[in-house]
């Protein structure tokens, strides 16, 4: 029996733990030191640039920041609403497209072709072109009377993002082990029930990090509806810029968009980490 100290740990383990905590302290100090050095380098470079005072005035002016803040924040509310509606729209259309592409029955053949063509074309078109086509093309048809720019923008965002999400979801659904489908079918579940109760919930879990990443991308891309003239955060910033010839409002808009995405980025990291841990410890024995 080796010597045991008052903590119930042998002298060897105590010595090892001492060494490890020394290492930990050293690595924390190193990271603080390197971060400070990096920040100093950036600050010094900016200070040394001859044009820095002008750039600081046009992008980081406290006065214009305060002036633009309420209007841009007001505009952001539109972005949030558009995002909420687009999220539901993308979920429904994206899942439908993915499911249609996975069907095998002969009846569905034309729909399969449509879905495939749709995802191929929509992923290829730059989103701004889709926005123009929907935003200016549909009103140009003179069919529906006057439609709000924000509504048209939302439709364009949904159309564009559904194509990407459909492919991500399809990858997730196809990644579910064939035995799971076979198990469900042999319990007597119909194809539809198998999809709804087994394949979809498992497939979404498999691609959840990718989906959340696309959601963060969509969060800032809803800012593109400003190109149609809808007064969102970006457009509100643009209006102030046009009046003042100062770019600080854009920085305001950026900060707000970042603030909006941070919770989801953290959520995504947390979820991926939790899943990684679970997969490493659990699983089949």
């Amino acid at each position, binding site marked *: 029996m080796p010597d045991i100290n008052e903590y119930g740990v042998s002298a060897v383990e105590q010595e090892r733990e001492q060494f490890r905590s020394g290492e930990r302290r050293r690595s924390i100090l190193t990271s603080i030191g390197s971060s400070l050095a990096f920040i100093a380098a950036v600050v010094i470079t900016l200070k040394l640039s001859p044009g820095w005072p002008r750039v600081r005035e046009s992008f980081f002016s406290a006065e214009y920041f305060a002036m633009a803040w309420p209007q841009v924040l007001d505009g952001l509310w539109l972005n949030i609403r558009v995002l909420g509606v687009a999220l539901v729209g993308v979920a429904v259309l994206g899942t439908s497209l993915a499911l249609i592409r996975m069907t095998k029955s002969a009846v569905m053949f034309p729909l399969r072709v449509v879905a495939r063509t749709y995802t191929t074309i929509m992923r290829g078109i730059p989103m701004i072109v889709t926005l123009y086509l929907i935003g200016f093309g549909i009103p140009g048809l003179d069919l529906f009377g006057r439609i709000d720019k924000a509504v048209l923008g939302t439709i364009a965002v949904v159309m564009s993002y559904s194509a990407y999400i459909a492919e991500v979801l399809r990858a997730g659904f196809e990644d579910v082990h064939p035995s799971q489908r076979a198990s469900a079918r*042999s319990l*007597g579940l119909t194809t539809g029930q198998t999809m709804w109760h087994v394949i979809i919930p498992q497939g979404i879990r498999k691609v959840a990090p990718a989906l959340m990443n696309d959601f963060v991308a969509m969060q800032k891309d809803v800012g593109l509806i400003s190109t149609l003239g809808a007064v969102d955060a970006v457009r509100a910033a643009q209006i102030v810029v046009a009046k003042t010839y100062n770019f600080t409002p854009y920085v305001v808009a950026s900060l707000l968009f970042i603030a909006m995405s941070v919770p989801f980025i953290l959520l995504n990291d947390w979820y991926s980490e939790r899943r990684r841990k679970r997969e490493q410890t659990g699983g089949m024995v």
Partner: protein
Amino acid sequence: MAELSSTYDTSRFGDKVLRIDNVVKRFGDNTVLDHISFDVHMHETVALLGPSGSGKSTVMKCINLLEQVNDGQIWLGETDITDPRENQDSIRSRIGVVFQQFNLFSHMTVLNNVTLAARKVHKWPREKAEEKAMGLLKRIGMDQKAKEYPDRLSGGQQQRVAICRALMMEPELLLLDEITSALDPLLVGEVLEMVGELKRQGATILMATHEMSFAHDAADRIVLLRRGKIAENGSPEEVMDNPTDPETQAFFAAYNRV
């Protein structure tokens, strides 16, 4: 262990629960099953043996309608299940199936796994389904794990829950497709013990397996497949202990060496 499977009354179908009649299955030019015929009688346990690639899994898949036969017929009771006019979903719910692995739905608790078919296919109220499922789980000592997710269970526990799920709707036939092949050897025993118990209670079982000694002790009959044909069909004593065919002798001798 108390009674796990209530015996399904199949008397009106006669003694044969499953009848495989001249079944042919091809994948492209490759004939995997070449005019296979055998029966499974009520309360009988039949072990389907054969080297890898002999067609065991294909037989199981054809019975479970995961593969379509190219010729011949398969009868479940008095239903020709190869008849495309029959409702495949209702045939499937008359057969309980357990696969090699990934049987349980990983996003559902043990209890939801076992009750899924009752609730969604047979439209039982949740309470009724859960009461029955808890009864089944209790009998295999898994009722404490009812609220757990499958990844918290050992492989052996997962397979026993999968068998419970297959028994839930009192199937006429239980298909076990190499259910211990993906398990740690130490966990195989508990699963085989459960199968033995089901057999004693009168379940009708067709199992594909590589567990030779289990097949020998538990099965009433051995069907040995070789190159897509039935090489042997008889009692374990005839087929395994005293085989006359040299190839059959070599097959079992190879297993005895490992």
